[in-house]
Every structure is written in C-alpha cells, then in structure tokens.
C-alpha cells in the first residue's frame, strides 16, 4: 500500500494478489455494499422515499420487503439506509431499531431489545427491568408521548418478519402497527421476509393496521445479465494500485466469461438458482484458487468450483462406507423396490443380504449377525436410514422399522465411483430384483 507513489507503479505479483483477494473477498462475503443496488432501482427509490418521509416529515409508515432468499432484501435496505443517512437532517433525527425474528423469539425479548436500542433503559436507571407487562406499558407509554412533529422518528427493522407473526397474540406487531397508524411518535416499520404469504399470517386486526405496502424483490434476471454480473463481481475497480495488473486481471475475467465451458457451467448455475449468494459461493471457490503462482482465474477453476458446489453430500458419504455397509444399502434398495417404499427392519435386510450371498456372491462371505447389526447401526448413525416416526424404542433393534434416506440415483452414482467395488456387488445393485 505504501508503494502507491506512482499510478503505474508495478507492484510485486504477491502484493497484487493479496490486494485482489482483499477486494474481491469483501465483495463476495457481503462485507461491502455495492455502490448501487442492481436490478432493484425502482424498489430502492420507493423505499428511500418512504423512509425519507418518515425521517423528515415524521409520517408513520409500514412496509414489507418480500423476496426469495438471496434476492438482496437486506442489501436493498442497507443501501437505502446508507443513502438516507447521507441526508444530514435524517441522520440527526432517525433512530433505528433492528430486530431479528430468529433472535427475538418472543415479544418479551423483543421489547427488551427495543428498549435497549432506543437507549430508554438508562431512564430506568439501574433498576432491574420489570415484568413483561411493565415493559410493554413502558414502551407504549414512550411511543405514545411522542407526536408527529416533535419526536424523533424511529425506524423498526424486523428481519425474518414472518417469525414475529408467530408470537403470542402478535402483540408486538399489533402495537407497532397501531402506533404507525395513530398520532403518536412517528415510526416506520420495515419487515423483511421471504414468505410470499406473510400477510395471511397476520391476524385480521393486525392486518388491518398494516399499510399493505409490499416491496417485492423478484429478480427477472436474464442469463446475459447474470453473465454480466459475474464479470462485474470479478472485475477489479479502477482505483486498483497497479493499473497494469488490474488491466490484465480484468481482461482475464472477460475472456473467462467468454469461454464456452465456463458459460455452460454458469448456465447450469443460473438454471439452478438466480440467488446471488450461491453465485458468490461459486466465485469465492474460484477466488480461493488464485495464488501468486497462478494470478488469474482459469476456466478449470470455475469447473472445479462448480463440481464442488453441485456435489451431492449424501452420495459422497457413501464412498466412505465399508463393503458390508454398502451391501446392506443395496439390500435396502431392493427391499424398497420390492415393497414399494414400505419400511423395513434389520432382519429383512439381513435376509436379503443372505440371499445375495447364497445366490450370487463369490467375493463376499457371510458375516456374523452382531457384525451386521453393528453395520446397520452405523448406517443409522450416519442418518442414511432413520427409524419410522411411529415406531417406539420398545421393539427389539432387529425389528425396528426403518426407512432409507437415499434416492436410488444416489446409490447408483456412489457405486460407480466407489473404489474397488466388487463386480458381483455392482451387478447385484444393477439387477432389477434381488
């Protein structure tokens, strides 16, 4: 960094790579907000206007931001807040309260958190906070005392909004929306949720008090835009200290995106999900392969990263099983085929396995019953099989009903890649019936 004397100064490659890692990782790990939210300009404007009115005019509002996971709801809100706080007037007056449905699991906790974030607890001094009822009364009192023109507006951000709807009586939501609909302290309630049916969760009176503004973040991203986004995400900014390196890197990214195989991989990802997070995950895996020795992202990196992303965890787990356990799995598969998905127990699996040994096997020999039981239990521990819900623990272990948690395709795929799998086992697995 200290060598930033001349614009065209050549930094050592190591330095450059560190810089690249720094910049891109910040971007990909959501540590830095994009300068401008892409693809959601209108929503951005809408939300900004709304919050501005609360901050500056003291108008109470409520709004929901709805969109699938990874659609950029929180990013949008953060961008809006950043832009909002650039306004001096808004910055001076706006109070923020951030709540998360996963953290504030009931109204009691939520109220305490609100009090804390509004710095109202120092009013109570060193007093231990009273009961839930007192808490609520306290907060309502505080909000009631304010009025539109003189109190500082409060912005309530409820992340995972749908979880708040599960609180008892929806007391918190009712009260927040009620304040937002009455002449009390100006507040804006912004809910963030991925549930499209969130309004149906609200109780009728709560619903009536909600302003029914919803901002939907449903990205209709086309593949070309997706490609473009990949390129911009990987490109280095203009301000990069070593402009030559930056130039090279950006060119490299451009050619990378033009590559046929890369395009194919990205298409597959695009088909799978338009979620920004999964894209970032993919790019992050590529980025981690950039080193001094290889200061660029190559198509092979992307292919490898994609392979990792699409890897089937359960199928991979099968690779670590012993032959006996694999045989048991195959026996279960056959049982599933025969009985059309009905649950099985250890004894049935053992019998199936014994049939295989008698008829087809020449490489395998019979195991003791306890050994097989042990293998069976190991599979259960790995959750490749799980007991049927209703079956009680009273039944003997051998007769406890189980279900296979694997799809046939996973088993076949694992068998293909299983190292040194005996051919007769393979054939047994392929054969239609036991």
């Amino acid at each position, binding site marked *: 960094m200290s060598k930033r004397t001349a614009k065209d100064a050549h930094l050592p490659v190591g330095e450059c790579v560190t810089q690249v890692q720094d910049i891109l990782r910040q971007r990909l790990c959501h540590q830095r907000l994009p300068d401008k939210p892409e693809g959601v300009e209108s929503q951005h404007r*809408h939300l900004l*206007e709304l919050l501005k009115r609360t901050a500056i*005019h003291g*108008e*109470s509002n409520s709004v929901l931001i709805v969109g*699938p*996971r990874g659609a950029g709801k929180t990013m949008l809100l953060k961008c809006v807040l950043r832009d909002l706080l650039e306004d001096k007037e808004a910055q*001076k*007056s706006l109070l923020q309260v951030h709540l998360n449905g996963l953290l504030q699991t009931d109204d009691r906790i939520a109220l305490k958190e609100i009090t804390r974030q509004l710095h109202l607890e120092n*009013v*109570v*001094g060193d*007093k231990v906070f009273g009961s*839930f*009822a007192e808490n*609520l009364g*306290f*907060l309502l*009192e*505080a909000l009631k*005392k*304010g009025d*539109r*023109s003189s*109190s*500082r*507006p*409060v912005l309530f951000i409820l992340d995972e909004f749908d979880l708040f709807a599960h609180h008892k009586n929806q*007391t918190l939501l*009712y*009260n927040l929306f009620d304040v937002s*609909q*009455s002449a009390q302290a100006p507040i804006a309630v912004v809910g963030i949720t*991925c*549930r*499209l049916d969130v309004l149906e969760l609200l109780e*009728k*009176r709560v619903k009536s*008090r909600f*302003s*029914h*503004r*919803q901002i*939907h973040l*449903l990205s209709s991203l086309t593949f070309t835009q997706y490609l473009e986004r990949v390129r911009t995400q990987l490109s280095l900014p203009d301000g990069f200290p070593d402009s030559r390196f930056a130039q090279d890197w950006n060119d490299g990214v451009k050619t990378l995106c033009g590559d046929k195989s890369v395009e194919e991989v990205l298409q*597959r990802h*695009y*088909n*799978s*999900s*338009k*979620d920004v997070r999964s894209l970032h995950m993919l790019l992050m895996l590529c980025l981690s392969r950039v080193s001094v020795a290889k200061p660029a992202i190559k198509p092979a990196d992307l292919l490898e990263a994609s392979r990792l992303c*699409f*890897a*089937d965890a*359960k199928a991979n787990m099968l690779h670590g099983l012993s032959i006996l356990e694999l045989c048991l799995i195959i026996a279960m598969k056959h049982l599933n085929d025969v009985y059309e998905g009905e649950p099985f127990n250890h004894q049935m699996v053992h019998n199936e396995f014994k049939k295989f040994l008698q008829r087809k096997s020449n490489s395998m020999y019979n195991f003791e019953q306890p050994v097989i039981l042990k293998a069976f239990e190991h599979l259960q521990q790995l959750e490749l099989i799980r007991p049927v819900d209703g079956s009680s623990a009273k039944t003997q272990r051998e007769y406890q009903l189980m279900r296979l*948690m694997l*799809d046939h*395709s996973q088993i076949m*795929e694992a068998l293909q890649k299983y190292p040194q799998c005996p051919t007769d086992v393979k054939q047994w697995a392929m054969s239609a019936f036991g």
Partner: protein
Amino acid sequence: MKYFTRLRVRRVYKWRGEPLSFNRKLKTFEYGSLVISVDGLPRTTVINAGQHILIEGEDEDNPYVAKVIRLFGDESGKQKKAVVQWFVRVSEVPLSKLKLLGREPHPQEIFLYQGRSCDDEVNAESILRPVQVKHLDRAAPFPDSGDKDTLFVKLSWDSKTFRELESAAPVASPPPPTPPLPKPSLPPSPPRSPPTAAPAPARRALPTPDPAVMRRAASGEVRGGRATASAGKVGVTEAESLHLASRLSASKCSSARRRKAIARTPGVRKKLQLSSPEATTRQDILDEDRASEMMLAQRLSSSPPLTLRLTHSLTPLRKAGAATTPRAHRLTPLRKAHGAAVTAEDTAVPLEPDSRTPSARDDSTSPQQGDETEAELPTASGRTPRRRNATPRRNSSSSRGQKASTPSRQTEPNQREPGLTVLIEEDNENSPMLSAAAVTPRSSKRKSAQLVSSRIRKQLNLLENLQVLNSDGDDDEDEFVPSKKELQSSSDEEEEEEEGALESDEEEEVLSKKSRRAAAGSCTPRSKRKTTSTSARTPRKTPNKKIPPGTPRTPRHATPSIPSRSLPARRPGNVLEEARARLHVSSVPESLPCREQEFQDVYSFVESKIVDGTGGCMYISGVPGTGKTATVHEVMRCLQHAADVDEIPPFHFIEINGMKMTDPHQAYVQILQNLTGQKATADHAAALLEKRFSSAAPRKETTVLLVDELDLLWTRKQNVMYNLFDWPTRRHARLVVLTIANTMDLPERIMINRVASRLGLTRMSFQPYSFKQLQQIIMSRLNKVKAFEEDALQLVSRKVAALSGDARRCLDICRRATEICEHSPADPFSTGLVGMSHVMEALNEMFSSAYITAIRCASLQEQLFLRAVIAEFRRLGLEEATFQQVFVQHRALCRVEGLQPVSVSEGLAACQRLGACRLLLLEPSRLGVLQRVRLNVSQDDVLFALKDD
C-alpha cells in the same frame, strides 16, 4: 396505607336519644344527634344537626367539610344517613377558577358549595368529627389566630363563580357550646404536658449535628433539586394536568394530586413514617399554600429575610460543632438552635387546620389510646426496632409541637424555611449550575414537595398513632437508642446515619429525599402493599445508592419518551403531500362522517348513564377498520366537552386494549392505574377495584371504561370479563363499560352464560363501509384539497368496499396513489391530480398476489420442480407427494428439456427455496428425501404462470 388507618381508628356510630320524628313515607327516623366513639375508648364525640363536620373523602388528610342539616336512619337502624350542606376547600376549587376570587385565598378558607353535582346525602359513617367553621364578612380580615382548626367561610361557590353568602346569619353556625372543638375540648394528655416536653429539648441541646450528615442532607437536597429541575418538563406537564384535573371537579382535584404523588413516589410512604410529623405538618402547610395558589415562592421570599441571615449563622456553627461530635449525638436535630433563633421571627403564617387534625384526634383519643391502638394493630407494633427508635424522638418533638399555645409551635412553619434556605444556599455553593437560577430550583423543589405532600397528609393518620404509640417510650429514649445502635449490623450503620441525617435536618432531608424519590419513583413500580407492609426497611435501598455528595446525578425522567428531534418535521410542501398527510390514518378528522347514527347511539347511551349516575355495558362489534374505536373516542371527546361546560356531571374516561396487555389479568392493573395511579399486582388490583366499585362514596364520579379488543380478555374461567360486566351492575359502581370486538356473536360464542347475561343486550354492530361512505370519508378527509380525480376516488372506494369495507385500507391505497402520482413522469396531458392510472397501479400493488410473478421469476430448475410436482400429483391423483416421487418426475423433465440431470441435493435445494417462499408447503427438512410436498398455490396458477415461457 388505607387499611392501617381504617383498622386503627374504628369508629362506632350510634344515635343519641330517641328519634325526633318518623317519616312514614320513607320509613326513616330522624335524630337529633349522633355519637361517635372510637372502638374501645370511653371518649365520644357528639354530632348535632347544624354542626359543621369533616367527612371522609378521597384525600384522607384533607377531608371534606360540610354542615349537618339532618340526621336520619332507617327502621332497622343499620343505615345512618346525614343530609349535609357541602363546603369546598380552597384546594378543591379549580386553580383556574380561583382567580375569580380576586385575592389570595386564606388557606383555611372554605366556600359554601352551591353546585348541583354533589349528592347531599351522605353515609353518616363517613363523618369523621366536628370542626369549627366561622362565618366572616366579605370585608373582614381573616383573624390571625393560631388555631388551625377553625375554618372560615366568606363566600359561596357554585362551581362557576364566587358569590357573597346570601345571608350570613342563617348559615352561620350557632356558637358552639364548647369552645373550638379540636383543641380546647380535648385537653392535652398527661404525658404530653409541658413538663415532659420541656426536658426533651433540654436534653437535646447538647449534641450538635455531624457535618457529614449535614452535607449529605444538603447534597441530597442538591440532588433532589437537580432531579426536579431537570425533570422540569415533567413538572410542568404535571402542573398542567393538575390544572386540567381540577377543572373537572373539585374533589377530583385533590385525588388527582394524590394520585400523581403516588405514581411518582411509591417509596415515599415509608420515608414518611420515619419523618417526624412536625416536618410533615410543615410540609403540609407549605403544600397547602402551594396548592391554593402557586405564590408560595413569593411568600417565602417575602416572609423571612431574617431567616436567610439566620441560616448563614447557623451553618458554620453546625460545621464547627460537627468535627467532634460522635455519631450518637448526630441523631438529634438542631431543633433547639432553630427554636431559639427562630422564635423571634414570628411571621404569622397561618396554621392550617389539617396539620392539626392528627394531633386533635390524637388528643381526643386520650393517652391510653396509644396502647390500645398498638394492641389493636399488630402491624404497627410489629415494626422494626429502627422504626421505634426513630419515632420516639419525633414523637417528643411533635408532642412539643402540639402545644400550639407555646411559641415554638407557631414558629415551626418558619423554622422550616430557614432549613430550606440553608439548603438552597448550599445548593448554590455546590452547584454553580443551579445558582444561575436560584429561584427555579427552588420552585421545582417546591413542586416536588407539593407532589409528595398530599401523600404526607395521608400519612398523618398513621403517624399520629405512632406518636401515641411511642409517647410513653419517650422517657427512656436515651438509653434505648444507643443500645439499639450497638446491636445494629454494619450495613445498618448507614441507615442509622441516614436516620441521623433525617433527624437532624428533618425537613430538608425529607424534602430532598422525597423529591429524589419522586423523580425515581415512577420508574420503579413497586407494589403498594409491599411498600406499606415492609415499613422502614425497604426505603433504605435508595439512600444506600446515594452517590457521594457533589457529583452530579444524571437526571431521571419520570416517564420515558422518545427523544425529540433537533429539527422540526417538515411541513407538507405541495398539494399531494398535503393530501397524503390528511389521508394518513393517524390524522384525526374534524368529524367522523358516515357514523352519525352509531355516534348518536353511543353518545346517548353513555350520556344517560352519566346523568343518571348509573352503570351499564355496551358491546360494539364490527370488522376491522370500520371506525369503532374512532367513534367511541369521538363520543368521549364530545362528552368531555359537555362535562367541561357543565352540561353533564364530570366523568372519568379510561381506555384499555386487550392487545396492549400481555395477559388478560393485566386489565385490572391498567384500570386501577388509570383510575387511581396506583400500581398493584393483578390480584391486588382486582381486589381494590372490587372494593372501589362495590362501596359507596360520596361525590363519586361516573367512570367510563372502554375495553378494546375484548376477545383477548378471554380466560378459561372468564373471570376478567365477568368482573368487567359485573361491576356496572353494582349499586354504587357508576361504571359504564363499552366493549369493542370484531365478531358480532362474540358473547354467544366465547362467553359462558353468566358472563353473556351480564353483558346484556345493548349491542351495536358497525357495518363495513359502503363505497359511498368510503368516498365521503376520503372527501371529508381531503377537505377541499383537490388532489384526486372524481373517478379515481370512486374506483378506490368501490374496490375497497367490494373487498372489505376497511377504511384504513382505503386511505392507505389513496396515500400510495398520491406517491405514485408524484413519481410518475410528468404527463403533458395530466392535470397533476391523482388519476385512474395511479389508483389502478396502487390497487394492483396492494391487492395482487405475488405468487404468479414469483413463479415467473423463479429459476429454471425451480420451475421444473413445480411442474414435476403437478405431474406427480396428476399421476397419484393426490394433492401430496414425497420429494422422492417428485424428484423422479423432475429428472425425467430435465431429460425432456435437454438439461443435465439434477442431483438429489440440487433438487432438494430447489425444493427448499420454493418452500421458503411458501410456494410449496414442506415437512421439516430433516426428513430429507422422504418429506412430503404440497402446493400452496392452485395448480392452475402454476400452469398459468409457466405457460407463457
């Protein structure tokens, strides 16, 4: 507290002599006089017709004054009634009206009450004791008598104006056969005779106060002063509300004051018990002054310029003496010094009758009453030893004070002033901040003092008993105290110290502490019962937390509030913004259109109940957003206005909301708090309310209770609802309950019979608004602000009326439409008004479901999965399938589409994403491939959404 006093002085009322006459119609016997005797005591008091009496009121230490006209009882002799002519005290007259007087009222002045709103028939058992009332000419000056138990009547008051007494002669009480009742008729009791009182000060002359204590007291004062000064805003609002309250009714005024005092200082009570009655009486006087007119500051400053000097001379003296004094001595006040120095300046600050009342009653109950009461009251005797050792001293002082004829008694009101000024002086030394405005802190301190003083008055009854209780322990005080002290643990030392400070600078310390409490009080909701029963122990907490003197204390606001903004909110700039502000649900419209009939019904219902002084219930139902709560509020506003202009008797409006409480039983707590300002646990509150609504009290106001979201008050036993509906049926309750809920048949659906029956059949249902009404509502809100096109308005109202008839929705849509209009690119043809297109857009935004868009925006695999789900449903003929089954279809579809087959985890991820959006309904994800999948949207919608691609 109330319990104690009630328990302690149990009076027995008996008729004296044979009935004078018998009224056949009413079946009542008229009697000439009534005998009041305190339980277990030989002494009795006789009340005759024509005599002036004190009647138990809400404010126990400022009882109502009245003149007995007639005494009568029913046949059985159970009920004893009295017909009275009321008098109002200065404190009962609204402050605003007090100006009409044109002069400063005398603190002992009372006015003949000629208003109509008070029932002149009272229960004879609420009579406390006789009082002397003197009628004076308007021009005549108030006699400067030291007798505080004489009240003076000059004018009459009919709740609007002051008038000359029509004829002084008939109203004037016949000269009482005995000299003024409280004092001379009750000679001082033996232990209180001068000989005992005299030695006490003599003994006390030796010790001098510890400087530390002094300083602490002073700093306490500083803190108190600061706290109140900084909480000035609160004080102001309080004064305002006090003012308001006083306008409602005279009697309510005092209770309101008291309520506030309670609200602010739950802890004060105990302190009060510790403080000497002397201090409290002084406080009392002070307070009385203040309550009657806010001119005390002037009076104070005018009264003793001498005291200032005096205090200056006193302070160093104390400090000098302090250096060597052991702690034991600290306990004694420097009253002696005071007494000596101050006797000179005998500015005749009139002594207020109330301050005397305790002593008077005390006397009437004779010496042995002390023992009696002690025996009667385990609570009193069961006090901690600390209490005891505090009280004897106080007691002795008060016994001294009781000799009103001695000069020391009369100077007491002045004595306190030096105390105050000392503090103010020290205040200024310690805090330059305060010295800048020496007057303000004082006045605010006064305010806080005033706030607590009504509390103190309540305490008097208790204190008087304590005095008696400890009067015989007076002599052994000296050996008693030190031994106690040795026994005390180290933690108690502090308390002891505290007490010492308390003793030495009683009034100052008490004042300061009170004001501190007052500041902190309302933040710590402490149950009332707790405070009272734990006696001297609990309040220690606060003193212990004291910060060292000199350090500034952060101000504590009594009630929390959102901080106010530095810049004022911007006003709406253009027509659209103006319209938006008007359309906001929160803006209160001038009138409520379209609910005239409902308004009328509710109004007449409540009004009739208020006028008749009866009670009743009403149930109001209607879907959300049909103006139920708004209508009731509007009714209340109108009624309040009517009450303000004296068209109807004053009433008390309380509102609770089922959604704004955490538990149905909290309803009691909230009602009680709104009604009296007390804080109590739910059970206790229920008991108190029960008592309140089932007992008769003179001059009781009607209470109107609005219970919003009634259905949430449902409990399994339904006792909350039962009580709410049962209270109005009580004879003396005077309670009108208006309940609001959404469902029309709520009483039938969720209430058990006895509850539904009590709710009665006064029902009202708010229909959803029709489109015309909605249109009218918007128009009236906009109030000639031209922002909407006619058609646009009609579209909105028709659409909303068709869907829900919810006015809130309607307003929200209009608001959104103005926003859209504002941000839509300027169309050369457009009028700048909100047109059809904008409204359509807003409607679409709010009413259209996002499912279809969401499906269209989903990724390809997600769309394929949805198709697979439908395909599998068709295959199975069921609306449910396991993921495994769907996944087979999914793979097949992938092959058809020419895509790479998906892996299980990929498919599962797509499935989970759809589940998170609730396009699919899924079982918990731990079930993996076995989880069952259902569609949350109709199959047609999915197919429609996917067809276009």
